[in-house]
């Protein structure tokens, strides 16, 4: 049974994929879907509760919350996707190098990984973002700098087992160079756990970006970013709870969707789980 078929039978994974697809459409067409300008002030309509004109109400500066959430999806999801991409590339490069060549190179890379893993990642990201100064780009750099270690570990482990396989020897007997073997023969064999991890990490990274923005290190006003919207709504929590409820809900739904899909992917790619479903 193919992976796609397998995923289709997993209701949660299907739900997750639908939500992600829906969010992707929003990200792509955000400016056309948003009913209002997300950063234009309208001081006469401050802190309105949700109604027919403003489905999610307005914030303390009279901006439409729905429009801000729609445009904010671009930042939250887009940035998370970029970070995951960078992290995957970095992790794959480091993990493959360490696993395939071993020895001193392996020692250096893996000790660096150990050191980075010894810190709570969000605090390390806080420090890096703090040093670089608050901006979206710097948050991305900070997250990428700490997040690759998990990937490097997983890849290294798989590379270590795959490189002992006979087909690697056969490739050497064929006259392939080391780097060719690493990229062409070993890498495709270790990618599936990375795909699962990357999907799950989309959720975690969205959360981390939101958290860092909430703390004021990420997006700067007036950019509509979900984490920052939460922070901006905080002073009005009692009078206008919708300012926090809707961004919070969006973050939750998005993270949940990626987790559902990630779990589904993991089950679909795991041969042991596959047997169970066939029975």
């Amino acid at each position, binding site marked *: 049974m193919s992976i796609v078929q397998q995923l289709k039978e997993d209701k949660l994974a299907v739900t997750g994929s639908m939500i992600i697809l829906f969010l992707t459409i929003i990200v792509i067409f955000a400016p056309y879907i948003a009913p209002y300008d997300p950063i234009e002030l309208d001081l006469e309509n401050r802190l309105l509760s949700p109604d027919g004109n403003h489905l999610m109400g307005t914030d303390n500066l009279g901006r439409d919350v729905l429009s801000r959430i729609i445009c904010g999806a671009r930042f939250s999801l887009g940035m998370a996707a970029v970070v995951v991409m960078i992290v995957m590339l970095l992790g794959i490069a480091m993990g493959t190098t360490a696993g395939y060549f071993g020895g001193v190179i392996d020692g250096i890379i893996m000790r660096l990984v150990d050191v980075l893993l010894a810190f709570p990642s969000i605090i390390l990201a806080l420090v890096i973002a703090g040093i670089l100064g608050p901006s979206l780009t710097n948050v991305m750099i900070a997250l990428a700098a700490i997040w690759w270690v998990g990937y490097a570990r997983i890849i290294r482990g798989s590379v270590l087992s795959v490189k002992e396989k006979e087909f690697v*020897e056969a490739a050497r007997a064929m006259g392939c160079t080391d780097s060719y073997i690493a990229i062409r023969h070993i890498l495709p064999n270790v990618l599936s756990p990375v795909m699962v991890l990357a999907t799950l990490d989309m959720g975690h990274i969205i959360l981390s970006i939101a958290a860092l923005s909430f703390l004021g290190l990420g997006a700067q006003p007036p950019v509509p970013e979900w984490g920052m919207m939460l922070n901006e709504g905080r002073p009005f929590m009692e009078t206008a709870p919708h300012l926090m409820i809707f961004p919070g809900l969006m973050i939750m739904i998005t993270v949940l969707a990626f987790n559902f899909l990630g779990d589904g992917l993991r089950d679909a790619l795991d041969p042991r789980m596959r047997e169970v479903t066939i029975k």
Partner: protein
Amino acid sequence: MTFLNIQNLNVHFHTEDGAVRAVNGVDLDIEEGEKLGLIGETGCGKTVLGMAILRLLSENTTIKGRILYKGKDLLTMSDKEIRKIRGKEIAMIFQNPLSSMNPVLTVGTQIAEPVELHQHLKKQDAMQKVIEMLKSVKIPSPHERAKEYPHEFSGGMRQRAMIAMGLICMPSLIIADEPTTGLDVTIQGQIVELMSEMLRDSGTSMLLITHDLAVAAELCDYIAIMYPGEIVEYTSIKDLFKDPKHPYTRGFLDSLPGRGLKPIAGLSPSLINLPVGCKFHPRCSFATKRCRDNRPELIEVGKKHYVRCFLYD
């Protein structure tokens, strides 16, 4: 100049239990177009010998001696030079075709690899060659088959694909490591037939590593019998059955099903702790004090017939 000339080859691995002496002082010649069978029990160093030729053993192995291929020493050439030999001049066919193929690449892609690497052909041209090659190893509907993955092939088909991969660059020497082991008997016959056909047509030399005398008899001109790390007898395939000299060779032949199924008493020695003198003396019924103390040299006992035994001294 000999085509492949192995001189006093020693291969030792270093382990915690001591040095594993897998190959000890092997001299071997293969002429152009000649097919040599290397016969021996499991763990007698025959695969190691094959791997040593292409320098496929791990870095911490000690290899001493010389392996001259067309006059050039394979053991001392640079990594770049040996890579140009691998797959192009000397190709290897491995024992287990399922694990010797990358599960995530299509069979066609993998067979195309040697030509892409060595002849720098474009993808389409390489694929064209692959299809031709699959046709010549008698794989039906090669166009569709080339796009399939190794697990979609049957065992016999996979071994055919491996042979295609080995021969696609027209190498001058093939090292075939147990190419028929693990296939069922009817398929074995087909593979042997295919190999002899392919090799006859191309004039390729072959080093066949096997423990199956029947397969070797079918494919080879000469046979070298290996007993822990040494060649104990070298002879033409005809003389092997007609006039085996070494007590081990005779024991080996007698243990065949068609010849009485009599096993040789005792076990072959551990490669870590080899006996002094003749390696076979603890199991040999003709052993004397001389066998226990001195290592016999290869002695010529007939035309292209050598034996390492004091009985013929």
